[in-house]
């Protein structure tokens, strides 16, 4: 019972999530339509229906907060739908905000948290007030009033505006230049002059002015007098008088300028029309809704929602089967060696091959199921861009390419936050203000490009802005102040190297307090999160031209091709995705530069990392002796008869052929982005497809391993986390050594 209701709840969450995502898409379309001034009523209907469905769902599952929000939104949308209120950018803001809040409410519901959500209450209040203004707005809506102006009206001013319109007065806009020194007096004079003809409702600075000492005001005035009369009366004040045009498709009975009071009484009509509209609406909207529902039922029949963890489990089973397969192979080989079993063994071998083939297909199939297009996360980013650019008052155009690129679902989920932070940085810190842009001859609207494409076993995501670029000097300055760099080091740093400072904790270009947006999360966090996904991030920037962040990610985390290597007496798997090439190491060519081992490979310098040394496998210390002893046991056909005492250790070492350690070694060139590191191993074993299993939580703090994989017969190889090693060795080495003696003065 409980399980059934749990499952129903799961369904509820995923369905609600889907609807909310759809809602977001519709709103984006609506936003675009609004800007193009071509609003499709169907879009509003879609939004309305989505909210309506959510309301029903929420009611069903006792998600009260969601139900209340949906209810209020429904009111608003109903008014929009019936044309009772105008759709404006600020209305859209409210709608976008509710999509965001829906997401948060859903998360809280899912976590079973019942926490206060003041932001929801705020929105509800806004919506409620909005609803109260429905009737008045419908009257005001006759006029083409600037929404900016409407949004700043005080309650009283709004009330006056309403009353005046209802009384049949006509609205005029007066544009007047005032000298700042005398504005009080002049404004009073104007009011006195205007008084006989009507009422001044509000005034707003236009932001323009002939010079620094003057200010231009837009004055909203309601007047009984016709335009000419008003103009004549105000000629001395220097005011430009214009009648505010009414919207052409005015509501039925909407007052013509000359209309007599009786027609203005028709203003409440739309309100009464509400009832009529609602009575009329069902016949038209319900069948449409029904058709849509039928459509979605069909589509549901073809798609199934699957919990990603179920896929993980399937993947594990496939991994197990792969182990069975290899054990089976061993048996087959043994049988083949027995002449009497030849016939059976060849049949068995045939079967085993078929098994192998099907298993591979199954593995591929499961992987495909896990793949989702990046578009899912990009859509959410488009909403974020809209919000941030409005908040920051910057014009930004988001250009998305490659939204169809597919990535493992788990990666997509984990990507959204890092991408959001990067986009936010691109707008907040990269893109200049409109004024700055125009001053340097750039188009007023900034462009942020979000590109995704597949590159071998990787997916590359680029976030590129055409903003001011990163000021490397600032970065160097901050890094020095934080004690990360010495002045000498800073001087010796190339522009490219300096840019990578941005990924260090506490380093930012936001130098001045005023520049801190208060929201920016450090790029170090972004980098860490990308790193957890097995990806890397790279930055390139050109002052004045723009900045490009490049994120390179593996396509899937579940199964990977890996290069199996031996280091000292152990096996390790290095994800092939990170392997550029493998070459024999000629010890003669290794040079020590600044304490690091370097070689020249294909005429570029490569830093080496001796894995045996890094993992403490060469050391003659007690620990490694113990390990060697245990491993000796581990390798002796699954037994545990190993000894770790002195004498047996030696024996273990000999049987393991460790005496041959001095032999030729190999370099596996691991590359992540533009960074390369030569991992020195004892032997190259070969390529394997491996299922990576995460290490237990108690080993979470151990760096350098992405997990472990089974090699069959219960043997395990650790999977080397190449990106982590690369950053540890290359960057950690850069910083850690010189920083040590200084003692990190600023913590």
């Amino acid at each position, binding site marked *: 019972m409980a399980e059934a209701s749990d499952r129903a709840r799961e369904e509820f969450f995923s369905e609600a999530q889907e609807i909310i995502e759809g809602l977001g898409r519709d709103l984006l379309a609506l936003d675009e339509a609004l800007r193009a001034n071509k609003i499709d009523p169907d879009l509003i209907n879609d939004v309305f229906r989505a909210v309506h469905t959510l309301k029903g769902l929420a009611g069903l599952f006792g998600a009260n907060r969601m139900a209340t929000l949906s209810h209020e939104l429904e009111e608003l949308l109903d008014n929009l739908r019936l044309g009772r209120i105008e759709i404006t950018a600020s209305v859209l803001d409210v709608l976008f905000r509710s999509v965001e809040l829906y997401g948060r409410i859903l998360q809280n519901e899912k976590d079973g948290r019942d926490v206060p959500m003041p932001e929801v209450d705020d929105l509800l209040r806004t919506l409620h007030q909005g609803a109260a203004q429905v009737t008045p707005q419908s009257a005001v809506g006759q006029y083409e009033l600037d929404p900016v102006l409407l949004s700043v009206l005080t309650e009283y001013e709004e009330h006056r505006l309403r009353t005046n319109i209802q009384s049949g007065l006509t609205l005029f806009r007066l544009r007047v230049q005032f000298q700042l020194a005398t504005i009080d007096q002049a404004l009073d004079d104007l009011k006195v002059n205007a008084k006989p003809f009507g009422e001044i409702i509000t005034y707003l600075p236009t932001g323009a002015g002939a010079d620094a000492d003057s200010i231009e005001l837009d004055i909203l005035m309601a007047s009984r007098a016709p335009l000419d009369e008003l103009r004549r009366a105000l000629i001395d004040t220097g005011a430009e008088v214009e009648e505010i045009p009414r919207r052409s498709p005015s509501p039925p009975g909407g007052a013509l300028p000359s209309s007599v009071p009786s027609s203005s009484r028709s203003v409440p009509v739309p309100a009464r029309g509400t009832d009529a509209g609602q009575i009329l609406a069902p016949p038209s909207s319900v069948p449409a809704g029904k058709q849509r529902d039928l459509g979605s039922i069909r589509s549901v029949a073809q798609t199934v929602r699957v919990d990603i963890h179920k896929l993980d489990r399937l993947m*594990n089973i496939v991994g197990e089967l792969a182990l069975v397969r290899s054990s089976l192979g061993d048996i087959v080989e043994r049988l083949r060696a027995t002449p009497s079993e030849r016939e059976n063994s060849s049949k068995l071998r045939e079967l085993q091959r078929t098994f192998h083939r099907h298993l591979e297909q199954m593995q591929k199939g499961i992987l495909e199921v896990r793949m989702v297009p990046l578009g899912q996360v990009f859509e959410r980013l488009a909403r974020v861009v809209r919000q941030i650019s409005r908040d920051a008052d910057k014009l930004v155009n988001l250009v998305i390419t490659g939204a169809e690129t597919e990535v493992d679902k788990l990666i997509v989920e984990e990507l959204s936050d890092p991408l959001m932070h990067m986009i936010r940085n691109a707008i907040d810190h990269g893109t200049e203000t409109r004024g700055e842009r125009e001053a340097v001859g750039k188009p007023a609207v900034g462009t942020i490009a979000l590109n995704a494409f597949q590159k071998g076993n990787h997916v590359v995501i680029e976030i590129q802005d055409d903003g001011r670029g990163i000021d490397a000097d600032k970065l160097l300055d901050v890094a020095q102040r934080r004690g990360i760099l010495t002045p000498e080091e800073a001087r010796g740093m190339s522009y490219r190297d300096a840019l990578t400072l941005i990924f260090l904790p506490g380093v930012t270009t936001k130098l001045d307090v005023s520049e801190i947006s208060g929201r920016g999360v450090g790029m170090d966090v972004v980098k860490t999160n990308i790193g957890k996904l097995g990806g890397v991030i790279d930055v390139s920037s050109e002052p004045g031209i723009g900045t490009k962040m490049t994120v390179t990610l593996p396509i899937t985390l579940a199964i990977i091709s890996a290069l199996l290597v031996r280091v000292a007496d152990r096996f390790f798997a290095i994800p092939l995705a990170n392997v550029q090439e493998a070459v024999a190491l000629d010890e003669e060519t290794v040079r020590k530069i600044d304490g690091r081992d370097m070689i020249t490979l294909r005429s570029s310098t490569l830093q080496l990392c001796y894995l045996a040394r890094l993992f403490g496998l060469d050391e003659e210390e007690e620990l490694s002796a113990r390990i060697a*002893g245990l*491993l000796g*046991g581990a390798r002796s056909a699954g037994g545990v*008869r190993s000894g770790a005492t002195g004498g047996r250790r030696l024996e273990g070492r000999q049987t393991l052929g460790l005496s041959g350690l001095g032999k030729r070694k190999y370099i596996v060139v691991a590359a992540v982005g533009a960074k390369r590191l030569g991992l020195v191993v004892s032997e190259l074993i070969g390529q394997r497809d491996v299922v990576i299993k995460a290490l237990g939580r108690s080993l979470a703090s151990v760096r350098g391993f992405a997990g472990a994989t089974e090699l069959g017969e*219960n*043997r395990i190889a650790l999977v080397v986390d190449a990106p982590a090693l690369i950053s540890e060795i290359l960057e950690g080495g850069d910083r850690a050594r010189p920083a040590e003696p200084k003692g990190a003065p600023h913590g």
Partner: protein
Amino acid sequence: MANLTRRPPKGKGVMRRNVRAAASGPRTEYLAFVLAGETYAAPVSLIREIVNPPPLTPVPRAPSVTMGIVSVRGQLVTVMDLRRRMRLQESGGTRRTRILLIESMSGELIGLYVDEVQQVYRLAETEIEHATAALGGDVAGYIAGIARPQGSVAFGDTVGGQAPVIILLDLHAILGS
């Protein structure tokens, strides 16, 4: 996999020969095992399984009490050296060496490496001395108490007939640290 010693659930099978019920009050089952020659025990209810040690893969740079990881029927298990945790002398594996599988509080499957598994004791509260303060040192926090069972042997060999001293471990404290 055939050599894995699987414990029947609830220890019913193990408890074939019943106890001479003597003391009053409820009794708790403890599994006794040997660490460096001493007898230790932990509540049976916390121990999911006893396995023969599969090949152990050490994890470089892991905390020192971590011996490595093993695979038990496809699941990765982090193996902890109880002797090292208890600051005891370590010796190599023997044919009696076992790994006790415990689920930690965080849901992770942890293996505890022990020298030998002895038997199950059903201990009454009266047989347990909770005064751990008597045992000094930094391992005191890992000890839940001392038990002197009154010859209530459930199965296996009796140790010379005399009541052994059993150190009861606080597994949650051990795994939590």
